């Protein structure tokens, strides 16, 4: 099975959105709204990213439509910027499998019973 990958020729250095052209020469990222060569003068991309995140990372363009099911956090994580998402600090994720005890008659002739899925 092939994995579904998005083509991202020029990832935005602020929010990781896939731009059609390099992030320079007044290219405006529709996702974070940064205009490269203007908004980023005297400010680092990291600072601009944190500022965008502070406002809950909204889609900024009113001209280019937001992609279906777009999620800024997936975009940032995919771009390697999860360290800049403040609520991910000291996050703990615990996953559980629910076991249901089941008895199976494998061979009715022998009446052998096999148990599996016994909770720990």
């Amino acid at each position, binding site marked *: 099975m092939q994995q579904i990958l998005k083509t991202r020729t020029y990832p935005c250095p602020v929010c990781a959105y896939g731009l059609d052209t390099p992030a320079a020469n007044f290219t405006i990222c529709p996702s974070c709204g940064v205009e490269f060569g203007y908004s980023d003068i005297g400010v680092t991309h990291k600072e601009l990213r944190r500022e965008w995140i502070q406002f809950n990372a909204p889609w900024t363009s009113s001209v280019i439509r937001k992609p*279906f099911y777009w*999620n800024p956090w997936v975009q940032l994580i995919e771009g390697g910027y999860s360290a800049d998402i403040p609520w991910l600090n000291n996050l703990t994720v615990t996953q559980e499998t629910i076991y249901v005890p089941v008895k199976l008659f494998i061979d009715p002739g022998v009446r052998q019973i096999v148990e599996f899925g016994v909770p720990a």
Partner: protein
Amino acid sequence: MRLLVLTACEKVIQDPLSGPSLIATFQELTVAFQGNQEVPLNAVVPKDWVVFAQWLLEEEDRGKNFILHVDVYWPDGTVFTKQQVDVTSTLPDWMNLIARMLGFPAGQSGKITISVSVEFNGATVSGPIETFVEVKVKRNEQQDGS
């Protein structure tokens, strides 16, 4: 065709000889956010996970070009992601779907719904069939004591 397996798991190891092996299937996920930062309802945590599905093919299914759909919904019913992929099964009896997900939807407590279906020539020939992952979100567990 018949759906035999549909589950969320952490990883799938693919081996052309012995078939897929599922690592750490899960039905519940507890996410604990620390500190006083506000966590948005569309929050996603950096956890890689996989939706695995396996269908048993009938004689007439073999060699056909199917479109497999995988939809994941937030607890409030909105779409987290919809993916689809064209597949022509080369295996004699089975068709496997391994949909790798980047990031787990963790902004809302409740059931994450995973739905799979198979389409052929514009018609749904299997499903949609759903399974769930129960997400428990704990916010601001750690207080500064002041």
